[in-house]
């Protein structure tokens, strides 16, 4: 089940009414029920695996919590009798015991997920409508694992109600595509009682509409061209491949960030604030900046739970600091890649990010000197150059996921130089009435929608956290919804030809 379904939207309306009319203490159970239903429709196997995960994680977290309480009580009781070293040794021993539990819990969860994925691959029961949904079913693992580690670190209170923990794990708006919420960020608003806040509700609806605009007018439309372009990878090399990479970037952003807008919007309608996941990623000035703007919750998740722990891990402490950082960076990005899928293209994608980040890190002092020496680096034009450079670099890195074929992607990179096909590329548009399976008018619509995307500032500002005082007028939303209905890519295409050749 996807967001783009009349059943989903209809169900959502019913849910909103129930949510704000039932007694407030029924709010979170209602959301849990809805989430269970949502996942049940996605497939019983996934739901069952998830519930087992929640149950096991609940047990592990409760046990770690008990150990922590006992530890604290012991230290408090014997505070005067223990020397600092004794106390440290005691705490370390306790920590080891808790760590064993944590690792056991994580291992169990991950093996279960791997089992389900393998079983599904063998049975081929899963229909993958888009890459995003493929990644989606393991997002709950990010959330529950983050929670377990947070409990181990003592960052969050242990959740004593297993059902509340279940709701945090499978809350349906962010279930499929994220954002990857952290327990300490969302628990209060997710599990608390909410009054109807019309302003927030309205902004939630606007966010949903904005998401649909991105997904249906830009995303799905460009996907048609992408599917055509990647169906003939041998033919479309050189400029064609570069064009494909650009379109892929626009598609991925529209599809992914649009879906996230819908998630965030739905959560807002329930009075729940979840984390932002995109903040104008194509305005990034360098790759560090980019990863603070694109799929933010994934980036911070890997930073906090993989990169930082690794960088202060005991076995690495003897190494020089810079080497330590590089190793941690590479491992982190390797893990990030492999999480997307056990396939070469994801691994290469992850490592490519890691390598570029390492090189950029080493070049940082050089850049700093360069920037200090030349004043033009403070000009707007230079900023534009930096943004463009980052955009192109990330476009190349991102392209590993277009073809699911690493050698082919490298061949395409090479073809930019060896055989760019400039002439053929520009002739193509003159010689064909349909450009890569999309009529010129369709490209025009996609292009205009992208212009609207860039020109409309309200959501960028909201994502950055400075909610604008002046909001778009109601008529803007009416027009946007109308545009989605007319220019959205959905349903059966109308083909007069089809009618013409019919024989009665």
């Amino acid at each position, binding site marked *: 089940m996807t967001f783009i379904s009349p059943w989903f939207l209809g169900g959502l309306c019913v849910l909103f009414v129930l949510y704000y009319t039932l007694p407030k203490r029924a709010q979170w159970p209602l959301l849990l029920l809805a989430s269970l239903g949502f996942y049940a429709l996605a497939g019983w196997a996934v739901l069952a695996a998830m519930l087992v995960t929640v149950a096991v994680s609940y047990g592990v977290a409760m046990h770690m919590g008990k150990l922590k309480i006992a530890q604290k009580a012991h230290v408090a009781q014997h505070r005067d009798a223990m020397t600092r070293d004794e106390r440290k040794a005691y705490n370390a021993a306790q920590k080891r015991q808790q760590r064993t539990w944590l690792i056991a819990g994580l291992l169990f969860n991950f093996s279960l997920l791997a089992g389900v994925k393998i079983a599904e691959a063998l049975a081929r029961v899963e229909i993958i409508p888009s890459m995003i949904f493929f990644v989606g079913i393991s997002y709950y693992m990010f959330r529950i694992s983050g929670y377990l580690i947070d409990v181990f670190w003592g960052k969050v209170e242990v959740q004593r109600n297993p059902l509340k923990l279940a709701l945090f794990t499978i809350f349906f708006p962010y279930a499929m595509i994220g954002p990857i919420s952290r327990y300490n960020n969302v628990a209060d608003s997710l599990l608390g009682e909410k009054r109807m806040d019309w302003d927030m509700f309205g902004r939630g609806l606007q966010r949903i509409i904005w998401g649909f605009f991105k997904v249906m007018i830009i995303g799905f439309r460009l996907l048609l061209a992408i599917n055509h372009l990647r169906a003939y990878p041998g033919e479309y090399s050189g400029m064609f491949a570069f064009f494909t990479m650009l379109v892929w970037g626009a598609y991925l952003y529209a599809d992914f960030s649009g879906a996230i807008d819908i998630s965030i919007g739905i959560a807002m309608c329930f009075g729940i604030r979840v984390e932002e996941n995109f903040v104008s990623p194509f305005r990034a000035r360098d790759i560090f900046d980019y990863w603070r703007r694109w799929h933010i919750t994934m980036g911070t998740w890997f930073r906090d739970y993989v990169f930082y722990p690794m960088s202060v891990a005991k076995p690495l402490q003897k190494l020089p600091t810079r080497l330590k950082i590089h190793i941690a960076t590479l491992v982190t990005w390797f893990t990030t890649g492999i999480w997307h899928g056990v396939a070469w293209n994801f691994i290469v994608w992850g490592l490519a990010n890691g390598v570029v980040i390492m090189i950029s890190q080493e070049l940082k002092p050089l850049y700093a000197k360069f920037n200090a020496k030349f004043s033009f680096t403070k000009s707007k034009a230079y900023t534009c150059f930096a943004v463009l450079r980052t955009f192109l670099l990330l476009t190349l890195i991102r392209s590993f996921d277009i073809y699911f074929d690493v050698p082919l992607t490298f061949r395409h990179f090479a073809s930019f130089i060896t055989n760019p096909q400039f002439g053929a590329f520009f002739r193509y548009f003159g010689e064909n009435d349909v450009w890569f399976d999309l009529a010129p*008018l369709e490209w025009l619509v996609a292009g205009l929608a992208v212009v609207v995307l860039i020109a409309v500032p309200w959501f960028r500002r909201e994502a950055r956290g400075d909610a604008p005082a002046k909001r778009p*007028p109601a008529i803007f939303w*009416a027009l946007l919804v109308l545009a989605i209905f007319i220019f959205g890519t959905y349903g059966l295409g*109308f083909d007069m030809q089809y009618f013409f050749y019919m024989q*009665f």
Partner: protein
Amino acid sequence: MKRILSIILAFVFFCTAFWAMQRLLMPKYMTNPFEGALTAEYYQSNFAHDLIIIGSCEVYSNISPVVLWEEYGVPAFIRGNPQQLLWHSRAMLEDTLRHETPRAVLLSIQALMYPSPPHDGEPYNRMVFDGMRLSLPMLRSVRESMTPEESMLSYVFPLLRFHSRWQEISREDFTFFLRRAPVSINGFVMRADVLPVGWIPPPAMLSDYSFGQQAIDALYDILAITQEHGVELILFKAPSLMPHWHDEWDAWVVDFAARHNLPYFNAITMTDTIDHQYHTFNGGLNLNLAGAERLTRYLAPWLMDNAPSLSDRRGDPALDAHWQQLATQYRAWQAAQEAEIAETGRVYYSILLRNALS
């Protein structure tokens, strides 16, 4: 307060614009395939019909309501669409009964041969249901006819189906934005030209001559509905050469008619009356104007004999005046088509459009 007002205004604007865009983007069916406009034309009629004729192209170009009125005094309306299947026909009947209760229904049973919705049936579904007023029976029939990729919602809001037509908006869409022009006379699609029968594919041997359950169920539904409303049901098979109507099928219908005491008129055997060298415009599939008038003159006396509910209604001033108008239009269309045939040998869609615009 100001905010609420602006929200209300935006909502009203949205509904109006949505309606207007839907109106604009829906195919107008004024040129090929103009048959899509047939369903909606019923609502322009006077809802005073003794006989409702329901079926596919086997009825809508084969029976002339004007001849039926002028010579036998039976006010009739044809509710037919291309490839109208039996569950479509049931929806047509139910839709008709919401507006009037005719004395009799003449049902073409040819569609019994289609057991289930064809996988490419979407355009036919659209032509049947586009223009039909929304009702529960209609939606039920939509559900039974839909191909897997269609959605019910697109029949409630056709914009969902036709939104991608924004690229091919033409003058036709603006000209007929509010009012459509008639493409039929009481559901009768007139074709005055001749395309004689050519090669007819030999009938295929079937391993199983039984009808599909969905079609049979729809037939029983129709029987029940007519009985409930006190409407006489008459079964009919047109004299089409294609698709072949097997004797085994006919035997089933004869048996069904006998069991339920229904009159059944099979026109296939009328080879002495209908000559497919002259009386068809598409090689034996359907009758042309001359053929339709012939068939009507043959069918009508049988109807008067076998359907006791029908009688000669001529002399009723309101009906006389109404049918006078229809007959005038009928003759005008006929003259226009004959003029074009004299010039080009065929009736082209342009003349049909000119008919429609007249």
